[in-house]
């Protein structure tokens, strides 16, 4: 009998590295699916310690925490330190929905001079820096699955993908890396 439940790391050991790009799984993080009307933005920003972005494709970052605009009333909040983000919102009295989705997603980090080309193999959005600059984020698609894409650097992207789709997403990116 097992002594403890162990959460399997779904992309453990996966890695694609070429001269132009590296595709690796991201470290575990806490994640929050946040929905709130305009009236709740100020209080939730205060509770989370960063200003929730109000513009399309906008992001806000403070230390290890980030908030990504997904829609006019929807954000994906990430924290690399594993902070209980839903707990931080618990004291906010205006109506909102804060759901911990830490283990729903996994992250895939794509970096290197060919990163944009590799993403473009499966993502139909215009990823040119003029349209998708550093700091931009968007829900979109990669091949046949939905992802949230965040440009964290000129040559670096974070792909947030549902755990059960992560094998597909990683394989597609690794194949694209071979061709890039």
């Amino acid at each position, binding site marked *: 009998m097992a002594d403890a439940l162990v959460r399997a790391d779904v992309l453990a050991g996966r890695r694609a590295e070429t001269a132009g790009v590296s595709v690796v799984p991201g470290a575990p993080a806490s994640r929050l699916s946040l929905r709130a009307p305009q009236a709740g933005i100020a209080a939730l920003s205060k509770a989370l310690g960063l200003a929730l972005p109000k513009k399309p494709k906008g992001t806000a970052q403070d230390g290890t925490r980030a908030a990504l605009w*997904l829609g006019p009333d929807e954000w994906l909040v990430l924290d690399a330190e594993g902070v209980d983000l839903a707990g931080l919102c618990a004291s906010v009295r205006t109506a909102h929905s804060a759901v911990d989705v830490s283990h729903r997603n996994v992250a895939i980090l794509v970096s290197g001079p060919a990163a944009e080309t590799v993403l473009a193999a499966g993502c*139909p*959005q215009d990823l040119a820096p003029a349209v998708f600059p550093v700091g931009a984020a*968007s*829900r979109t*698609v990669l091949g046949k699955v939905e992802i949230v894409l965040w440009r964290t650097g000129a040559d670096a992207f974070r792909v947030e993908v549902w755990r059960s789709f992560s094998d597909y997403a990683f394989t597609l990116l690794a194949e694209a890396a071979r061709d890039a």
Partner: protein
Amino acid sequence: MLLIRCPYCEEDRPELEFRHAGEAHIARPERIAAISDEAFERYFFLRANPKGLIYERWRHLHGCARFFNAVRDTVSDRFVMTYKAGEPKPETLPEETGR
């Protein structure tokens, strides 16, 4: 691939992020149980299906996830304009419409 302008994301986005959601501006009867079968048929089943401009609901499913409305030409598949859900049917359309 078509590019569709999402009025919430405020930019043209690839067709693959969107889903069609039927004709727009179909008002649900206030007291639906009280209407005749014929009136229900008109409300529920019958659609304009024009050759030319049509007003449709679309959803930016794999983007901001919002529903919005679009004016599309069923002959050319061209999107004439898009506007937010809840906004009235536009009385005038952008200039280049008559192509």
